[in-house]
């Protein structure tokens, strides 16, 4: 069956389900892809792209990791403190921290991702202006922090205070949206490995972000990628840092949890 036929049948099936039940089908609670079949986006790249990611010198994402490392030890804000004032290799180390995100901030009860954690630290501890989402500096710091967890599997908390966010993220994942009336799982669970025009559909894991994409000619956040997905199904993309995307990040972390972080990854 061609992909066009698959999409047509998906849309047809959607209309059918909608008319029969009148409600959105309930989101599954178990992982749809077996652990043995889990594949990182890395596995869907060409040999050249994989080689570029594997080379810690040539991988252009490291330009941002390097910049982030410099920013991390640079003093900022009214308190004249750097990140390294609080975070050293032994005290409050950020090694492995990114693998536990998104995480619920105890003070506000909000689920936040790495970008938002960096900005919270800036506001609370450095009394500095938050960095705008997708700015070069925030991308660099996020890439640096996430890189400190490279090789570790996702380990974000999905129960307790995070549970409602996890469920909201899962519902977003399985909700049809846009003019194409497609949900995330139609591509990334039912059709991964198939061709979509010139691209091979991946399983849609976020374990390499922020990632250097050739398409962007720069590094970008996971939210930028999610916005592209929303545009791809002709849905209105949500703003950077939207709570729905952070909730979705948590769901994505859970469904990828056997995979290890690769930041900075290289994607087509």
């Amino acid at each position: 069956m061609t992909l066009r036929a698959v999409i047509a049948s998906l849309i047809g099936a959607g209309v059918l389900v909608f008319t029969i039940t009148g409600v959105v089908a309930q989101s599954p609670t178990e992982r749809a892809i077996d652990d043995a079949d889990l594949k990182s986006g890395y596995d869907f790249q060409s040999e050249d792209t994989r080689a570029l990611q594997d080379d810690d010198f040539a991988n252009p994402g490291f330009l941002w990791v390097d910049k982030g490392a410099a920013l991390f030890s640079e003093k900022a804000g009214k308190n004249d403190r750097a990140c390294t004032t609080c975070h050293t290799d032994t005290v409050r180390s950020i090694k492995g921290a990114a693998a536990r995100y998104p995480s619920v901030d105890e003070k506000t009860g909000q689920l936040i991702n790495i970008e938002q954690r960096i900005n919270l630290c800036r506001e609370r501890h450095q009394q500095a202006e938050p960095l705008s989402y997708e700015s070069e500096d925030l991308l660099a710091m996020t890439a640096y922090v996430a890189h400190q967890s490279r090789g570790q599997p996702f380990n974000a908390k999905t129960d307790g205070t995070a549970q409602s966010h996890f469920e909201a993220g899962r519902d977003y994942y399985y909700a049809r949206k846009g003019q194409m009336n497609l949900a995330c799982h139609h591509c990334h669970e039912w059709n991964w490995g198939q061709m979509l025009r010139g691209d091979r559909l991946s399983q849609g894991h976020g374990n390499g972000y922020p990632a250097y994409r050739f398409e962007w000619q720069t590094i970008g956040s996971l939210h930028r990628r999610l916005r592209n997905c929303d545009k791809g199904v002709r849905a209105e993309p949500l703003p950077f840092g939207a709570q729905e995307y952070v909730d979705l990040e948590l769901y994505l972390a859970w469904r990828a949890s056997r995979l290890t972080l690769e930041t900075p990854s290289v994607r087509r």
Partner: protein
Amino acid sequence: MTVRLSVPQSAKRGDVIEIKTLISHQMESGFRRDAFGEVIPRDILKEFRCVYDGQTVFRAELFPAISANPFITFHTVATVSGELEFVWTDQNGVVTRETASIEVT
């Protein structure tokens, strides 16, 4: 501008050494248009050179078709201990310099 350099710390005289360079630059081609249909002005690096022992051992001209964050790798012969200077010049003459030293025995 972030620069990454890979130069061997030491080499034997006469050895062919591999040098790798990476620089962050958007290399805006001047052919793209923004959301309002306006041309995004060209902003590119025009030249890269490597100077070793007072001599230019490698020089490259860069053009709009070269992708962002140019990665340039080349080989030269280790002759004397000292510094290698790497110079990137953009279209407005703004220069970015980095140096690396090598020990030749």
